[in-house]
């Protein structure tokens, strides 16, 4: 039979995580014998819309994409529907009035990731009852979905906990360099008062770790560090005892996406939400898990 | 003096008095003034830097005066922009052509006052009107072409027609003739006379005494930013006029004096071209320049003199023929090659090809020498200052200091700095393309003196000027160009002005301008 053609519009290549995501999808497509039409949107929604339009024009079998933004998809998805091409979302949700515009969403739940980070911290605080922990937060890029959701989830869990006090929050734009720069400023302003760092991704945490070391403090001990993603670098840091925990956010959506696409085309029922399996990795398990990490 | 009635009863249409204007480091105007009557051509005269252009700019709202009053038609006015001045009925052609090179000729004439029709600007009418206007000045060009396609002279005429088209009470022309040839000047004068008859007041700035006496009714002389005096043209002899401008008795025709001793023997050849040409701009030319010789290049506008000069300097690359100089034979690919071979070139377009306006006099002056010396071997600052100071003194350059930006100097003084730029490189051959354009009598005299002195010391000069008498007087030899080729070579004394004009105009026909 003719191989299945999937048009996939990726957000961009703005982070290691995203690259791992791309690689996973490409590899899975190759393995499944699917022809993949890949388009990079360079982090811009309009480019994504253009790509989807061109997929429609090329009459692909399935359109999949990781939306840059939640809103604003009605028009183009309607066009896809009119062309009878099923749409699968990966990684992030869209905000459309008509839920039938897409078949399923495969991906992680950023709010849940934030919650998990929060829960870990709440548990940690319980070990030293009565002690107030001052938290500084390194946010992701202002306005980006993961930054908003990870903040929301974290707040949900930690708010009202008398032991946890948010001292400062600032954006580190998801990068090591900014993470380090902002952490330096935090340290100058609050010095030893900082007990906990919550970083929205591992990269910022790694940057911050360097800043903490250069300030003569011990990351992971003087300042407890909680971060999200679970990239290799985070595991290395955990093995050296510089990072306390990372909440996994798996980019390896490729196999699930191929499966879903094949099911949709074959007419099999597909769940509206396919959640990727994700875990929390505290420093204690880092050494054991490290060899298994793919990204 | 035709038709100009100047009964004492007539009120001046424009009167400026007690005008003061200072720039950082320079007092450009102090107690300057001017009276302008309807129906007269009034010439404003003064040396370079006397403040003529500044006075005009104050009058037309470009600069705000520090003190003083302007009275127009009996009412005090103080225009703050050229637009306001135009609306008051003052139409101006400024010294440097101030038009937009990217717009068409027609548009440059009509911008701000477009003919309109239902859906905006009426281009067809504009084009027709522009052609009519230019035809009055006997110019027949394609008016839809961008202005930058045309030579400076045409641009000047366009600027004039623009000013003429503004129906004004007062018309101001700041050195409009500096890039025009004799015939064009006569044309302009005919138009001016007609306007005078119609009662317009015309203020005219020039450095040419001939032109002054040919057209003006009255003369105001400025010196050092002040009004020296106002005289009816008929009551002021040329010598007296020059004296008043200079402020001291003028030397009797120094260039002439220098030339008396000048009788160069035919020296050895410095440079020779063989069939030097460039497609579309210059037909093959053979000329020879000897050591210590002043070779004049005469011809009408557009006859190809500038292009020949540019090829000799490598500013444009020749695509045929060769230049032999100092043992090397070939064409110059870049100005650097020419400079290395000992050639210097003062361009006719001072503003775009000469002066680097926001750099200081010193920096402008040493630029070519520095380029010749090489980038890595900077001339020590002390030495630069020394050079600049010397040349400023020697050429009598009027500047607040050697660190003043050259752009703030008056036109004539800029030209002197550029001359110094090349003299500083100690060239073997100096090409001067219209070096005396826009320069006052004394400075012109001075420059020609330096030039002839330099020649006597062994420097060769290729001299291009729109002023035929000047070329005739100075050159040891003269080459006449016509239609982009050289068409005659004459030794000193072989020709007089009338016969040269005939050669220039084409053979023996009666082509000399009126």
């Amino acid at each position, binding site marked *: 039979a003719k191989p299945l053609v999937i048009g996939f519009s990726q957000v961009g290549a703005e982070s*290691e995580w995203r690259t791992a995501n791309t690689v996973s999808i490409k590899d899975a497509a190759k393995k499944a014998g699917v022809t993949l039409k890949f388009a990079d949107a360079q982090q811009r929604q309009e480019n994504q819309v253009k790509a989807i339009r061109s997929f429609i024009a090329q009459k692909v079998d399935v359109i999949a994409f990781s939306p840059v933004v939640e809103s604003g998809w009605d028009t183009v998805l309607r066009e896809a529907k009119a062309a009878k091409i099923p749409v699968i979302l990966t990684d992030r949700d869209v905000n459309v009035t008509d839920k039938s515009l897409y078949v399923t969403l495969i991906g992680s739940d950023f709010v849940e990731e934030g919650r998990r980070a929060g829960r870990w911290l709440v548990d940690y605080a319980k070990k030293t009852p009565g002690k107030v922990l001052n938290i500084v937060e390194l946010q992701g890029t202002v306005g980006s979905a993961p930054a908003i959701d990870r903040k929301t989830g974290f707040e949900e869990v930690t708010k009202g906990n008398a032991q946890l006090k948010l001292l400062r929050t600032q954006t580190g734009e998801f*990068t090591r360099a900014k993470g380090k720069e902002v952490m330096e400023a935090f340290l100058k302003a609050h010095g030893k008062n900082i007990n906990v760092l919550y970083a929205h991704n591992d990269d910022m945490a790694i940057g911050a770790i360097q800043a903490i070391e250069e300030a003569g403090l011990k990351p992971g001990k003087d300042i407890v560090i909680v971060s999200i993603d679970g990239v290799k670098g985070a595991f290395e840091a955990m093995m050296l005892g510089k990072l306390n925990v990372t909440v996994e956010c798996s980019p390896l959506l490729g196999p699930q996406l191929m499966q879903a696409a094949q099911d949709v085309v074959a007419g099999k029922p597909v769940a509206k939400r396919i959640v990727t399996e994700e875990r929390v990795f505290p420093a204690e398990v880092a050494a054991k898990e490290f060899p298994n990490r793919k990204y | 003096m035709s038709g100009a009635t100047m009964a004492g009863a007539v009120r001046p249409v424009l009167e400026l008095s007690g005008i003061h204007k200072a720039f950082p480091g320079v007092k450009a105007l102090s107690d300057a003034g001017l009276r302008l009557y309807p129906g007269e051509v009034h010439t404003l005269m003064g040396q370079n830097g006397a403040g003529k252009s500044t006075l005009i700019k104050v009058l037309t709202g470009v600069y705000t005066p520090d003190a003083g009053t302007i009275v127009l038609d009996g009412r005090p006015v103080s225009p703050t922009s050229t637009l306001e001045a135009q609306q008051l009925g003052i139409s101006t052609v400024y010294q440097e052509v101030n038009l937009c090179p990217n717009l068409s000729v027609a548009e440059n004439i009509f911008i701000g006052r477009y003919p309109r029709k239902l859906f905006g600007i009426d281009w067809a009418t504009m084009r027709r009107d522009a052609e009519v206007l230019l035809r009055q000045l006997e110019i027949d060009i394609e008016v839809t072409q961008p202005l930058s396609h045309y030579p400076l002279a045409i641009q000047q005429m366009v600027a004039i027609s623009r000013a003429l088209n503004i129906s004004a009470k007062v018309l101001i022309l700041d050195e409009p003739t500096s890039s025009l040839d004799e015939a064009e000047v006569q044309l302009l004068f005919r138009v001016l006379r007609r306007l005078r008859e119609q009662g317009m007041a015309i203020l005219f700035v020039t450095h040419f005494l001939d032109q002054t006496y040919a057209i003006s009714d009255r003369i105001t002389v400025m010196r050092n930013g002040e009004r020296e005096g106002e005289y009816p043209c008929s009551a002021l002899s040329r010598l007296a006029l020059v004296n008043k401008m200079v402020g001291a008795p003028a030397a009797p025709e120094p260039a002439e004096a220098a030339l008396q001793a000048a009788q160069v023997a035919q020296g050895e050849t410095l440079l020779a071209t063989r069939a030097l040409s460039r497609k579309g701009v210059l037909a093959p030319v053979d000329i020879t320049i000897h050591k210590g010789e002043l070779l004049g290049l005469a011809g009408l506008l557009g006859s190809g003199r500038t292009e020949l000069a540019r090829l000799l300097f490598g500013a444009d690359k020749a695509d045929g023929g060769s230049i032999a100089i100092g043992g090397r034979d070939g064409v110059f690919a870049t100005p*650097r090659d020419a400079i290395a071979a000992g050639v210097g070139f003062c361009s006719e377009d001072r503003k775009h090809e000469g002066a680097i306006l926001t750099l200081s006099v010193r920096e402008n002056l040493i630029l070519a020498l*520095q380029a010749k*010396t090489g980038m890595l071997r*900077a001339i020590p600052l002390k030495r630069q200052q020394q050079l600049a100071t010397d040349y400023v003194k020697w050429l009598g350059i009027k500047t607040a200091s050697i660190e003043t930006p050259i752009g703030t100097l008056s036109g004539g003084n800029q030209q002197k700095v550029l001359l110094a*730029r090349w003299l*500083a490189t100690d060239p073997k051959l100096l090409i001067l393309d219209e070096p005396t354009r826009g320069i006052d009598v004394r400075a012109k005299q001075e420059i020609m003196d330096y030039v002839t002195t330099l020649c006597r010391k062994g420097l060769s000069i290729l001299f291009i000027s729109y002023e035929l008498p000047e070329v005739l007087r100075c050159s040891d030899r003269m080459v006449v160009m016509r239609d982009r080729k050289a068409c005659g070579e004459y030794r000193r004394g072989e020709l007089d002005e009338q016969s040269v004009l005939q050669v220039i105009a084409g053979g023996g026909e009666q082509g000399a301008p009126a």
Partner: protein
Amino acid sequence: MSAAQMKPADPPRASSEPANAAPRAGFGSLLGHPLAKPLLALATLLLLDLIFIPGFFTLELRDGHLYGPLVDIVNRAAPLMLAALGMTLVIATRGIDISVGAVVALSGTMAAMLIGGTMVVNNGVPEYVANTPMALALAAALGAAVLCGAWNGVLVAGLKLQPIVATLILMVAGRGLAQLLTDGQIVTVYYQPFFFLGSGYLLGLPFALWIVAAVLLVVGLLLKKTALGLFIQAVGINPVAARLAGVRTATLIFFVYVFCSACAGLAGLMIASNIKSADANNAGLLLELDAILAVTLGGTSLAGGKFSLAGSMIGALIIQTLTYTIYSLGVPPEVNMVVKSIVVFAVCLSQSSSFKKLWKGRA
């Protein structure tokens, strides 16, 4: 040719000392000095910090390192200062280089990929081994940057493309190349000596600062001791006239772009070394805009011509101080940009003489 025979005829022999050589330095001219305004802006920012950020001016010696907010600021500003340095010369020739950020990413990636390195534990003693000798890797990274500059230079000076499009090409493709090298991954470096570049200390001061000082010194000397500065300005103000005066305009423009990229390359090494990794996606993102901003805040006109290296350095410090201030004051991240823009407006206005006139007129 010796200087003595440079004058042709006999101008009145120079008996006089250089007249009016330099304007006398008085208080009035001090205020009128082109650097006065950017300095004043920086001083104002620092004053605000002094008032609102406790301990802003504290400096302490820790393990022989100077340590404190001020050190952080200059340290962080170092890459920007380098980029602004190169950009100043480009702008002086009437050009612009928007590929700076991409070159930063490329050179950082090159170095990090080549050095890479691993930690080997030998008898309990950790040792760092580089994949490629560090000197070679650094040379390769800088070489890549210089190549980028040459590319820009050829497009601008040779093909006469408009600088903004010419450098746009590399801006887009350069980062792509960097990502191609790394496969989009962040390359972490495990080689101690490399870190010295971006986070080492020499004589108590950050090593990065010494690099900037050295480059500044070399360029400053070059401009002072050679005619480079004069030629660059001449080309920026009137390229036609400069060419006719014998200046090699095309060559000059070419090398200015090469220099700009080289500076960017060095900045890239610094950034990579500082975060101990190369992030092809994000390193130097939008650095070009900051560099241009620094140059203009320093008083150099984007129309080319007169320029001030010291001004650009001050401009870079203004930007970094502002960033630091925003972080330290606890400004909510969503307000950052508004604050930044307002300060930029204010600094610009404070530098505008027309604004001052208006202000005085009202007062």
